[in-house]
């Protein structure tokens, strides 16, 4: 479903000059699979997601979504994906129903209001239909954003920190939803730095550090590679953050 090869992106920083944010990342996510992109803050997860979502043009590399080359046919690629950014991105003056209907209408969905109502109900947010998005809690907003992402029934979902800012119940619900969406045959790519969540939903994971994919495989393979049973510790070792500071040993 998603096949990215050798993605690279450099930003120009006014003080530091060119900064290589993503350096040759390749990954593949198949239908029915939840792939977790792990990495500390600033590792390049969001930049990678934005390149996969066609929001950023990679300096190098290629993204294929369901066989469509994102550089050649970005609109065709977008029609096959839904990107849920870390920020809700909801217009505060619109009601939840209007916000979801707006996307459904632009996506060319027949009877967009009915589709929006149906999705909000499916995500347990039917009572939010007439509520202004600006008045919703973080968890409620997350439900509305997910409903908005699903209006065109995309085969690929890109979720950037989907549980960020949620309480325990909200987090549990979103994780259950992600599992359900994958079980329905969608390919789901989730960026996260919370190991407990990753263990709960991911079938495979890639570890990103300083813009590079330093390890990839099933969660057991990652643990085995790091030589540790705890995924959190394995993550720290793989990203190099678990090493003692230079000079501490001597």
């Amino acid at each position, binding site marked *: 479903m998603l096949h990215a090869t050798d993605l690279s992106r450099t930003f120009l920083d006014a003080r530091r000059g060119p900064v290589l944010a993503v350096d040759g990342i390749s990954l593949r996510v198949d239908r029915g699979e939840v792939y977790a992109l792990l990495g500390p803050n600033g590792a390049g997860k969001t930049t990678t997601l934005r390149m996969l979502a066609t929001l*950023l043009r990679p300096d190098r590399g290629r993204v294929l979504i369901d066989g469509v080359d994102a550089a050649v046919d970005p609109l065709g690629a977008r029609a096959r*994906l839904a990107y849920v950014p870390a920020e809700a991105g909801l*217009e505060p003056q619109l009601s939840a129903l*209007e916000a979801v209907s*707006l996307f459904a209408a632009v996506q060319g969905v027949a009877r967009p209001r009915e589709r929006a109502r149906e999705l909000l109900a499916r995500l347990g947010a039917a009572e939010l239909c007439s509520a202004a998005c600006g008045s919703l809690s973080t968890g409620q907003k997350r439900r509305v*954003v997910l409903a908005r992402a699903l209006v065109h029934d995309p085969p690929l979902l890109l979720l950037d920190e989907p549980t960020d800012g949620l309480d325990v119940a909200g987090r549990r619900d979103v994780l259950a939803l992600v599992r359900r969406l994958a079980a329905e045959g969608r390919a789901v790519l989730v960026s996260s730095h919370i190991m407990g969540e990753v263990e709960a939903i991911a079938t495979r994971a890639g570890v990103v550090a300083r813009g590079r994919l330093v390890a990839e495989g099933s969660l057991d393979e990652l643990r085995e590679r790091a030589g540790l049973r705890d995924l959190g510790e394995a993550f720290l070792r793989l990203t190099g953050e678990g090493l003692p500071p230079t000079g501490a040993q001597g």
Partner: protein
Amino acid sequence: MRLVGRTVLTIALATGLRLVREGFVVRALAWPGLLAAGAMVGTALIVGLMGSPVDEVASLAMRAEDAALVQERVAAASLELRVDPDPERAVAEGRASRAAWREADPGGAGERWVVAAPSAGPTTFRIEAILRDQAQAAWRIEVPPETARSAVVAGQSGRMGLIISVLFALYGVVMGAGLAWRDRAEGVVEAALTLPVPPWTQAAGRLVGLGVVLGLGQLATLQLMHGIMAMDRPLAIAGNGLVATVVACALGLSAVASPGAADRGFAAPLSRALGFVTALMGLGAGLPAVGAWLPVASLGALAVGSSPLGAPIPVTLLGLALVGLAVRRWGQHQGGLGR
């Protein structure tokens, strides 16, 4: 093409809805109309309580024998002649606004004409001219006909209409920049740019929504003013004002949405766009022959002379196309979209 049209229309509708629901926009649109209506009510109250400060029909008191000498000329000057044995007292007691009589010339033999008037002005000068003609004086005064009151009011309300159009153009810059900034900061743009439609449709939809809301507000305000006090050149003011508002919205949007603008914050791009708009108005006022053909500048040209209706439209369409090309890269730049 159908997809693009549907997208622009949908985003325009959503933008209009959002702007109307934001109390700020409604209040901003209501203020010019409220100010104009308040000024009219205040004027009506003052006139009602104190009476008109201007005599509608000037009256001239004269003795019967003097009146007989100038009767025709007085009538020709649209003055009301009031025969009174004591004209000077008639003015003092308010029976006439002015008076004229003959008296002995203390400096020599014969008589002289005397005019009693509360103030100098066209009516007094007209009476003086009549009496100089009667006395066959060596020189006379000629008072041109007064400008019609309606023309004076139309000129003044036309200036107010221009000021309102300038205000709406400035609103356009601020609202365009504010909309782009909020949508970027709240992640609305980032989510919308993953839709399978060309990115420029996001900017176009917002521009149409802004233009319709502000344009309707502007037309309603100008129509209100024109209904109360007939405006001079209403079509030219409304036409040039609408073009200026739409272009100002586009400038505000593109100032914040253009590549790299995210790194410069909100105030710097906004003040640059406001400075550009006011400079265009200044150009129009300073060089009306050129300014009449440019959007926004045509308001300046209109303030100092004239601007043919529709003259700035070709340049406006070209400018909007160029802005469209600039915002095509919306979001495809380093650190854009509020990050």
